[in-house]
């Protein structure tokens, strides 16, 4: 096996092997477990880096194995996968560090970190999948390996949330499967990137291809939490903070959005999707989701619920971006894969830290938190500003490109959606920030026992460093967006390549 075939496999192994080892290790070997976890995560980042350099040097990374009759399991480092791989490798590293700190002293850590690693293995598989069947395999693996993480706390609320999560995602998976099977009977074993195959097929099978698109994207929409299929997401936020962070930033919901990106761009091709007339409804669904999610977020007092509804909303920027024809809007959609991940992961880290250190879980309890946990709150503030879309943050870059892309495509209504959404973003993200910094903890409505002691209780470094690292990235990604190698230039390059196909 050459290096080109080995590397995609190694990217899987760097989290699969830790998972197996951790399951077998005794529960009390916390240090060994941490070393294996972080070691695997660092190795994965390094391998992802090697892969990026290799792709730019013109090496093809592809691994395949016979699976079903006429269908291979394919892992391939195309441009879009590469972006997702780097994102998930980096955020897995920070989240691993955070999770080790967050769960310190908790029970069942072997189980938690074992499934945590399996979950990342599945995500990497999803990222590198070279055809729909491979994608499906890892997509469903992700569904089942995330379940034990969602119910990790083991209380009644978690178990109910876990049930909702599983039933929604299995239902979505079933729809998606029917689409995959149907497409297979029409087109045989199509791989991602072979958009010409479907373009040719569309001459004869227009109706069938449209229906297949509905099945595929309809199935993916469950995980991507498009309204009205989003119901599981706010319920699943009962999971421990690092799980929510991973779920909302790189794993489950992101897998749904990423799947939509690949179906639209790498399977159908944007032009064909436009011809079939399926993109406008998708854009509308995304727009409705953006506004609806924001409206619901506005009225949530529970911080993590507010963040969950914010994910519903923010994630649809990706879908919206790729469903508007044009390089600029596609760039926006692709770059938001990265930006949303970095911002949302920060917010969940900080929410988790606040809850762990101060017992604060509601927006109404956040008074004075800024003085007690200034570093954590700084990270939170940066990410929140990013979500609102103020310059010079990463969120601004997305919204700017999305807006200009929509204008280029002549879809002015999108600008209105963006404006409304940004106003709503500000309305639900700025109040908690303002409370935390400008209100004192002694105010009458927050006279709880834990909060009434105003001394500093900053989060420990395991919790703080990941939060600060991702929080600062929100600014760095925005300020340095024009630099070569930034996610933006990368996304723009990919978008041009995709549109030229």
């Amino acid at each position, binding site marked *: 096996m050459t290096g080109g075939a080995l590397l995609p496999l190694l990217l899987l192994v760097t989290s699969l092997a830790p998972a197996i080892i951790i399951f077998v290790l005794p529960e009390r070997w916390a240090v060994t477990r941490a070393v294996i976890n972080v070691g695997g995560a660092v190795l994965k980042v390094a391998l992802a880096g090697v892969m990026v350099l290799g792709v730019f040097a013109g090496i093809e990374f592809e691994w395949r194995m016979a699976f079903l009759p006429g269908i291979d399991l394919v892992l391939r480092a195309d441009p879009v996968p590469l972006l997702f791989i780097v994102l998930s490798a980096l955020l897995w590293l920070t989240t691993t560090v955070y999770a080790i700190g967050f769960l310190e002293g908790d029970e069942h850590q072997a189980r938690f970190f074992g499934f945590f690693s399996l979950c990342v293995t599945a995500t990497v598989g999803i990222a590198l999948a070279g055809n729909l069947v491979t994608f499906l395999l890892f997509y*469903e693996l992700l569904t089942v390996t995330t379940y034990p993480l969602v119910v990790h706390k*083991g209380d009644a609320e978690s178990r109910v949330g876990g049930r909702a999560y599983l039933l929604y995602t299995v*239902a979505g998976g079933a729809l998606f499967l029917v689409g995959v099977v149907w497409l297979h009977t029409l087109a045989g074993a199509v791989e991602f990137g072979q958009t010409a195959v479907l373009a040719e097929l569309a001459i004869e099978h227009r109706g069938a291809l449209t229906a297949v698109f509905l099945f595929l994207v309809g199935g993916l929409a469950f995980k991507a939490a498009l309204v009205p299929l989003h119901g599981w997401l706010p319920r699943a936020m009962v999971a421990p903070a690092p799980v929510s962070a991973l779920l909302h930033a790189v794993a489950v919901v992101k897998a749904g959005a990423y799947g939509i990106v690949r179906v639209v761009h790498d399977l159908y091709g944007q032009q064909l999707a436009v011809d079939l007339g399926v993109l406008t409804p998708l854009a509308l669904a995304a727009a409705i989701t953006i506004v609806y999610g924001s409206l619901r977020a506005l009225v949530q007092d529970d911080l993590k619920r507010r963040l969950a509804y914010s994910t519903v909303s923010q994630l649809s920027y990706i879908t919206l971006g790729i469903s508007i024809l044009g390089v600029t809007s596609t760039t926006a959609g692709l770059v938001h894969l990265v930006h949303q991940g970095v911002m949302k992961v920060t917010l969940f880290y900080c929410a988790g830290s606040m809850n762990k250190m101060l017992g604060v879980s509601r927006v109404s309890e956040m008074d004075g938190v800024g003085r007690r946990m200034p570093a954590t709150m700084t990270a939170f503030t940066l990410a929140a500003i990013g979500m609102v879309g103020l310059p010079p943050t990463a969120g601004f870059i997305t919204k700017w490109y999305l807006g200009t892309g929509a204008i280029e495509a002549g879809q002015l209504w999108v600008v209105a959606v963006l404006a409304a959404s940004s106003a709503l973003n500000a309305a639900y993200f700025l109040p908690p920030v303002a409370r935390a910094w400008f209100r004192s903890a002694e105010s009458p409505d927050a006279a709880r026992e834990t909060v009434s002691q105003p001394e500093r209780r900053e989060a420990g470094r395991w919790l703080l460093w990941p939060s600060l690292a991702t929080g600062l990235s929100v600014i760095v990604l925005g300020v340095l967006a024009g630099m070569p190698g930034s996610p933006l230039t990368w996304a723009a390059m990919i978008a041009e390549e995709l549109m030229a196909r």
Partner: protein
Amino acid sequence: MSGTLLTVVVLLPVLGALLTIWTGGRTRAVLGTSSALVTLLASIGLTVQVWERGGSVFHLDLVGDLEVVLVADGLAAAMLLMVTVTGSFVAVFALVEDRRDVTGRARGYWPLSLGLWAALQVLFLGGDLLTLYLMFEAIGVAAVALVAAGGDRRANLAATRYLYAELVATVTLLFGIALTWQQAGTLVLAELPAGFGTEPLGAAALALITAGLLVKVPLVPVHLWLPAAHALSAGAVSPLLSALVVKTAFVVLLRIWYLGTPQAVPVEAAQLLGALGVVAILWGSMVAFRATEVKVLIAYSTIAQLGVLFLAVPLLVAGQVDAWIGGLLHAIAHAPAKAAALLAAAVLAEDAGHGAIEGLRGAAARRPVAVFALAVSAVSLVGLPPTVGFVAKWQLLLAGVAAGQWWWVAVLAVGSLLTAGYLMRLVKPTFDRDAEVSRPSDPGGTPRRADGRDIVALALALVTVLAGVRPGELLRLLQLVPPHLAGG
């Protein structure tokens, strides 16, 4: 020589059964397990031969015109592997359990289970109706005896009902076979005259045989004997029944319909069987949603899963080879998953001190390996990748879409959702943190997180993953059948 190996495969479990009658104590269990494992090796050898040379047929003359015909084709080899792989894991489980002597198992377990095993093998190899009939008898007797060996009154009642069902099925089957003999002059499937079954009496013969087989499967609405018999039998018995015995009638049905008399099956009859399959899925799922006992839930899940098998029938009649592969693979895939689930359930019931679903609360902390085994089995039963259950579902869906019979596609999709729903009832409570305190089953003993049995259950469950990641060989094996399938 192929013939030698075939004889070895068939006779080894018989020898094991005889040896375990005359030995006792630990020797009996060790001998029983050894003959199981050697049979496994022999069946792997036979599979390799079939793989390399294609199928082969053996004739053994009995008195008069009667002869025994054994067909070692890809289908038979695949079913033998299902029996020997699943059976071996169950045997090792029983060996470990025997050492702990927790159930005070009846003496009969080893001879009966090995006898059952031998009969299953011959049945899957059987190429003539007489052999099939005799083996159905042997399987029925051994299975009923194994259920009754569970000991208590309820098990005896269940065994009695099982026996009645078997009698009805056998008599129906026998009438059908006698009529076939009278009409066709032969009982060898491959020698049935072309067009047999299209004339009224031949059709009646096929209908009687089919009816008898449906009771044996069992398909709704003649399933009522199954749940009690499967749920009340001992930990190492119910996997043999639910995973292996229930597959016999389905495979024989396919052999007779598609390898014996491919032209005689009317489309309406096939659609009707498919429709009964749908009823089985819905009914089985509905009861599984309301069950309070773990093994009752699993037994009704078996009813539903057997319904899925019959979705393959109308698609097969529509000419879809993928339905042949998918239906048989579903039968095979179900075996390790269901057996592992039942083994895990046995361990977990012992841990809780009773078999109610309520007893699973907190089990993920007390017996993590057994719960993991249960969960992996559930994933395969639902039909999610990367398990072999998914591959089977994929093939069936492919056949459904290609045949343009969308209603079966919809049923398959809804069926897996229902399966996920009711199996969720077993997995969800295991994560309950408020109920994690261990309750040692034997007072004074220390609670254990896992013993050999948990690991056996998990290993068997992981077989579904192994076969699910690399299904190519199994899929090809199922297509190595006598040539008349290629035409139909």
